[in-house]
């Protein structure tokens, strides 16, 4: 029914569903219209709308309130509920903000990396992936998480495979990711099945109410194991990271930037939601999974992945391994099992998303101009591509965690959390692993600025359409190192929401 122009205020209560539906509808439209430029505009508009919605959602819930949206008016636990609190609103903001910056970049970037006939399909897949990530974060229904997880995963496989235009190995990478990702998703859904079997409900808040009574139940414990391992695969917890390096390396640049900044972050959020809201925090602590699985592998990731990164010859792969190490820091925050630990994880989600996206986009600009990210071939680019190189240096500093950058804030909060627990040795491990990051960042800086160019090929600076989005994120990675008002308060509110009062107690009194 046509009901005239909808006012902003009229839409307000429906923001939670619009957050997901707008990109979901835009995706098929992009294919049907079939014109690349319109498809781009559509995707971009959808992304901007999502950003506005997620920002306004976050502002509504940052004080600790919760928005519960009932799809189709069916009340939970029977109907599907979208449930927004500070924790997932913050992640929604990260995803939609990164997407909004990456999309204009993608428009130029894919021109040289994906054949023209596939461009509309690219936008469609991108939007689907975007929808899936937003959906798995915003939903309050456990099975719905699985559905959206699959939406984002399936589209991701296609996006990675689109990199075959530049490097055929993208196909193998996508195939491997498909197999491994499917195993992960299967584990996750097995876990959900076990929970459903024991409780008869799939609403997360409802599960959170019923599970404490069943905490001694073997089936519930098994479900916990399956869910942690399944989600652990999607977020690339250390020994389950094998899909990530190749997928990131051979995917098109824009895809890598988007995925590295958002996909693992959404999975980490889901893991935390299950650990602390669905299963009670006490239950999670009692399983020993935090101390015996998450913590040790987080520390191993911080070191092993960083060392691997040092030895890589492909810059994209270096950064991919660095991502695995950074995920180690996020898991470390979870492993602290304290308010400041979760705060550290949440703030690192944000800061790392910004930093790593900036880095991958700068590398993408190099690939755009030179066709390669093989480190020895980047020698002397500092003079030829000054802005791109400067972007790598600036965001590289943030990756290391130099004071004055966003990365420093994350490490600071993380180290403070360690001290709070009296784990001074952990603080030393964090600093020591950061030093390895210095090595691999410095290698790149040295190659860019201090080595003589190989051959006498003249390389031009990347076009502004690549540089501007990159630098927006570079500035963000510096800005959020100086002004921590938004990030820190949001991360704290998110930690409150995850660890705080019992899931339903703060609800609308239902």
């Amino acid at each position, binding site marked *: 029914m046509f009901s005239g122009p909808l006012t902003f205020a009229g839409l307000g209560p429906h923001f939670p569903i619009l957050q997901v539906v707008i990109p979901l509808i835009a995706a098929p439209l992009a294919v049907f219209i079939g014109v690349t430029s319109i498809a781009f505009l559509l995707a971009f508009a959808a992304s901007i709308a999502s950003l506005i919605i997620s920002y306004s959602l976050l502002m509504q819930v940052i004080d600790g309130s919760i928005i519960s949206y009932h799809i189709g008016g069916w009340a939970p636990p029977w109907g599907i509920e979208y449930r927004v609190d500070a924790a997932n609103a913050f992640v929604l903001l990260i995803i939609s903000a990164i997407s909004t910056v990456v999309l204009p970049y993608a428009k130029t970037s894919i021109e040289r990396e994906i054949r023209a006939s596939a461009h509309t399909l690219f936008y469609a897949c991108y939007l689907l992936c975007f929808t899936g990530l937003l959906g798995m974060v915003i939903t309050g229904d456990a099975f719905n998480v699985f559905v959206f997880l699959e939406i984002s995963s399936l589209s991701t496989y296609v996006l990675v495979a689109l990199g075959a235009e530049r490097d055929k190995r993208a196909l*193998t990478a996508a195939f*491997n990711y498909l*197999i*491994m990702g499917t*195993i*992960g998703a299967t*584990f996750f859904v097995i876990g959900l099945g076990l929970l459903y079997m024991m409780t008869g409900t799939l609403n997360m808040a409802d599960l959170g109410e019923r599970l404490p009574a069943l*905490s*001694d139940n*073997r089936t519930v*414990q*098994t479900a*916990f*194991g*399956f869910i*942690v*391992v399944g989600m*652990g*695969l999607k977020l690339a*917890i250390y*020994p*389950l990271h*094998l*899909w*990530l*390096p*190749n997928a990131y390396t051979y995917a098109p640049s824009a895809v890598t930037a988007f995925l590295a900044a958002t996909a693992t972050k959404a999975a980490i959020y889901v893991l935390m939601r299950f650990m602390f809201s669905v299963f009670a925090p006490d239950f999670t602590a*009692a*399983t*020993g*999974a935090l101390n*015996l*699985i998450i913590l040790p592998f987080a520390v191993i990731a911080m070191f*092993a992945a960083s*060392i*691997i990164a*040092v*030895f*890589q*010859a492909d810059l994209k792969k270096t950064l991919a*391994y660095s991502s695995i190490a950074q995920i180690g820091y996020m898991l470390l925050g979870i492993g602290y099992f304290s308010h400041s630990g979760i705060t550290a994880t949440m703030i690192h989600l944000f800061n790392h998303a910004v930093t790593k996206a900036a880095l991958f986009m700068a590398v993408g600009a190099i690939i755009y101009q030179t066709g390669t990210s093989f480190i020895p071939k980047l020698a002397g680019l500092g003079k030829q591509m000054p802005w791109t190189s400067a972007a790598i240096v600036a965001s590289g500093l943030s990756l290391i965690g130099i*004071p*004055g950058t966003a990365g420093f*804030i994350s490490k*600071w*909060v993380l180290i403070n959390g360690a001290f709070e627990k009296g784990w001074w040795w952990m603080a030393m491990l964090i600093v020591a692993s950061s030093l390895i990051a210095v090595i691999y960042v410095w290698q790149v800086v040295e190659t860019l600025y201090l080595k003589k160019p190989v051959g006498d090929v003249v390389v031009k600076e990347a076009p502004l359409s690549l540089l501007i989005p990159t630098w927006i994120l570079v500035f963000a990675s510096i800005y959020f190192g*100086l*002004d*921590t008002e938004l990030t*820190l308060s949001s991360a704290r509110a998110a930690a409150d929401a995850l660890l705080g009062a019992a899931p339903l107690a703060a609800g609308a009194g239902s």
Partner: protein
Amino acid sequence: MADGFPVAFLFFAGAALLCILPKGNARALLLLAIPVIAGYIIWLLPEGNLWSTSIFELNLELMRVDRLSRIFALVFALAAFLGNLYAWHMRDMVQQVGTLLYAGSAIGAVFAGDLVTLFLYWEGTAIASVFLIWARRTEGAYHTGMRYLIVQIGSGVLLLAGTVLLWRETGSLVFESMTLGSLATWLIFIAFGIKCAFPLLHNWLQDAYPAATITGTVILSAFTTKLAVYALARGFAGTELLIYIGAVMALFPIFYAVIENDLRRVLVYSLNNQLGFMVVGIGVGTELALNGTVTHAFVHILYKALLLMSIGAVMFRTGTAKCSELGGLYKTMPLTMIFCVVGAASISAFPLFSGFVSKSLILSASVDEGYYIVWAMLLFASAGALLYSGIKIPYFAFFAQDSGLRPKEAPWNMLLAMGIAAFLSIAIGVYPAPLYAMLPYELDYVLYTTPHVVTQLQLLFFSALAFTVLQRTGIYPQGLRSINLDTDWTYRRLLPKIISAVGKPAARLWDAIVQFSLRRINNIISGLYRTHGPEGPIAKAWPTGSMVLWIAILLAATLLVSFIDLM
């Protein structure tokens, strides 16, 4: 808010702008404009904490304006202006950007109201300034710069460590007067001491400054050490230890300066000696003494820059600053010669020149507080200053035996920069009231009394006499090509020598240990490479099977810990 916008950012913005301006005069103009604008802003700033921000629970005060910080910031802006004017002809972007960042960091540090901000700018000065040394682009300059950087960063690290400890002790980060006693304050004290070139911590100064470019040395001489003086005056005024440190600082460089052949190195030794005066003033810590220190820092920046600029001009035209190769230049570089003499007269504290204005204050203050021995040492140091910089510098460069060199007069921009510095040096000497009015404390001091002037003149004439006699009788060390050893010889040469001279067995053992550890390190690295390198098992990413295995292992482990812990 707009009133208290951190002035340092103006310099940083200028440095960024510089990169996109076309080469040439536009950049040089920008380099001149920024210190002028900054100086104007600083002049008009109201007092108080103007720009607060907080990162986490740390309250940072970026703009603490009071009389002490204002006068230092002003003279830094002035020095940046003179240095940039002097370097007008220079087209090296590295040095230009470095200068702006350096000056901006120094001014930022002066306005820092808390130790964290101070630390950030402290390191900023270190990193920005090293490029002025590296800009010479020689192998030697690279290594010198590296040594300099290590020392400077080391100072910053000590400062940070002290800050953290202090924060844990007191819960406050405010940068205010401290008393030595705890480890925290000692660390901060030593951090300041390194930058201030305390005796035995001073070697970086003589090592690095003469190694910089011609314009670089002028810039370097103004900021780093005076920033340390400011920090000491703010943090450790009235610490008695400083009096003795300062007295030694004022004395020992004299002997080196007298025998040194390179005139730029002579000036750097003299820089060290002048810093001694300031440190004594801080140690005495009375209002008069602190006023004296601040005045001395102010005029010192001017006349030291003036002297370095004149020697730099000579070097610019002749390519050398060695006594043994210069002489007789007054014939073709008369203006430079005059400016140099003005600088020499100022540093020697001739009445009516700026040095007199400030040294008198410090000397009077030390007498007032009863430090007669220190007073005598400072008097001796003044006489020494006359000997080696007041007379030696102009004499060997412009007079002495005619070297036969007939260089052109210095370029106009150098002359203008020197002219302004010379004018200010005389103006302050003749009419110090405006400068005195800007000092941190009320000053009720009559400068030109008969005893002051007569004492000073006696001193000057007797040391001039001494120089003449020594010169005539041939005792005064002629400018010789030589390398003079300073205490850094102990750790750069002596220590390794001792180690290798302990005997062949020890040496062989040492070799074996070195070999062994090198081999171990190499083994570790190659081991890491074998496992973590692109071909290593840990970095392999293709096999899907291994992934599935890992999933199984991890699931089993998770289930196991879940089950066991609950039982």
